[in-house]
């Protein structure tokens, strides 16, 4: 048994990245960014309101929040739906109480199904981002470019029909194809939450102009910490506030940075997690070095 000899060919071996969406650069070497507001940390709270179908294709894989048991998986369908029906309103109330702005990434499938949710988000002045069609409409390299273009177009149409023109995109399960960034800018998106290559917004090269990649930290996602890794609520809150405090220590040398983390309504919106959520948001709101805003506003602030 042996591999094809080409397996040991390294055509892209050389200085810098092996792809051309952005160039290699050390964070320590760039000019520090100082925000007009004087804030040291831009906190980007992304509330991911996704619709997870009860009859998923799971192609090419199951969304981490998707169905688990055989059809009809009433258990997971309704547990996820709890977030968009009940839990998210607790998150909205907690954000209102703390006076913080966030980015709500919505599946297009929720716009008709749960219109009062979009209205509540907009009434509170938060940004709405597009989270694709739904949790099972994955973008991946197995799709033709036209198939993926159609997914994005249908998402755009659904938002347009709801009177919403999002500029920020979060892919379902944060999965992309090689073409996704090009197709996103072609459809008018200018911010993306799938790439967390840097601590500040990073412009990706695309066929239709720059796409700003804002760092949403996978390692701070509520579902990952609280459900997959079984950590407790106090530790979840402590880790996010520790990240905030650590980034402040870098400010003198590296300038302002983005602290992006996800709240998932069926996780963070559970009754027994609300006091922890309130403590987390208070920890951000009470820190005068922290400025909390939507993804688009944060990206713009770093572009100045």
């Amino acid at each position, binding site marked *: 048994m042996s591999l094809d000899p080409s397996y040991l060919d390294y055509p892209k071996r050389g200085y810098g990245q092996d792809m051309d969406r952005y160039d290699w650069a050390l964070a320590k070497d760039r000019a520090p960014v100082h925000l007009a507001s004087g804030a040291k940390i831009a906190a980007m709270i992304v509330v991911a309101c996704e619709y997870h*179908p*009860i*009859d*998923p294709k799971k192609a090419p894989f199951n969304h981490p929040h998707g169905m688990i*048991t*055989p059809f*009809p998986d*009433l*258990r997971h*369908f*309704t*547990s996820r*739906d*709890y977030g968009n*029906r*009940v839990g998210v*309103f*607790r998150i*909205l109330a907690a954000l209102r109480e703390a006076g913080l702005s966030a980015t709500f990434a919505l599946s297009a*499938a929720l716009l008709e*199904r*749960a219109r*009062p*949710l979009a209205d*509540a988000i907009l009434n509170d002045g938060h940004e709405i981002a597009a989270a694709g*069609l*739904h949790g*099972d*409409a994955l973008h991946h390299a197995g799709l033709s470019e036209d198939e993926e273009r159609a997914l994005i177009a249908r998402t755009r149409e659904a938002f347009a029909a709801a009177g919403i023109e999002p500029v920020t995109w979060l892919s379902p399960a944060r999965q992309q194809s090689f073409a996704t960034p090009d197709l996103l800018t072609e459809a008018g998106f200018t911010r993306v939450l799938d790439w967390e290559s840097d601590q500040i917004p990073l412009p990706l090269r695309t066929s239709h102009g720059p796409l700003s990649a804002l760092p949403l930290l996978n390692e701070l996602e509520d579902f990952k910490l609280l*459900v997959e890794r*079984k950590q*407790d609520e106090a530790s979840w809150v402590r880790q996010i506030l520790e990240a905030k405090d650590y980034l402040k220590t870098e400010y003198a040398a590296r300038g302002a940075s983005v602290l992006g983390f996800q709240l998932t309504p069926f996780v963070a919106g*559970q*009754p*027994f*997690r*609300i*006091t922890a959520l309130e403590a987390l948001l208070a920890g951000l709101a009470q820190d005068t070095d922290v400025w909390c805003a939507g993804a688009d506003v944060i990206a713009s602030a770093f572009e100045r």
Partner: protein
Amino acid sequence: MTDPNLYDYNPYSARPKIAWPEGKKLAFWLAPNIEFYEFDPPRNPKRPGWPRPAPDVTGYAQRDYGNRVGHWRLMEAMDRHDLRGSVSLNVAMCDHCPEIIEACAQRGWEFFSHGVYNTRYSYEMDEAQERAVIEDSIRTVEAATGQRIRGYLAPALTHTTRTLDLIAEYDFWYTCDLFQDDQPQPVKTKTGRLLSMPYSLEVNDVITYGQLAMDPWRYADVLKRQFDQLLKEGEASGTVMCIPLHAYLVSQPHRLRAFETALAHIRAHGDEVWFATAQEIAGHVRDHYWDAIQDDLDDKGLKTGGTAFDAWSQP
């Protein structure tokens, strides 16, 4: 992607308030699961009866410990806190362990069906088979206790697309199989008035001890926080809190005392809480709020018509 159309979207903000009897803010119920797992169950095509090949001796023995040892511990703890249970019952328990059923019935506990055995799943059943399980449930519990059951939690949370319509047709008042809400909500069945009854998976001891690996004290803390939040919200909305339990888990000797601290915490707020059975809660909402909820949905333009799984053809 097809919407199962189980219920209409009903955002938790700005709903008409559900007022519980005597102005209580929160309706609280305890759901001990009293289950029988067969030593050598037949194989369902969609799911094996045990994770290991039968006989799965440790799995079987731990569940039997729940019945032989754990149940009495839990029941006596509930006696100490003057709390009744609404039993999620594998109805074959009436045949296998009647002493337990008798002791619960004497205490005025409610029974609802959790199928015949927890090792007999609904997957792939035809309509006649699923009707047989429901009819067996009604008949068996009635014979053992005199109670007409009004609630259903499908065995091992396994369903078909017709489960909800069937139980509604048999005049069940509530299902514990839907987890979308902290208040009872109308389910879109072809007939009847079926409510989804909050039966939390999040604070279910199977999830907290099994899936989330909590220790007993963390579980007690989670229960207290769950209660505090739902009580706080209940003043404006009228909430339900359920703690689903399994004696083979919660009644382990290292766990029961921590659990009792949560019961004591909840009991200490007795003047604000309606300690009820699931059937009492469902009855109250069906009698006083079914139409109000429907009218509110109508006013808000949220009713979409149709019934659950109407987009699926029934095999």
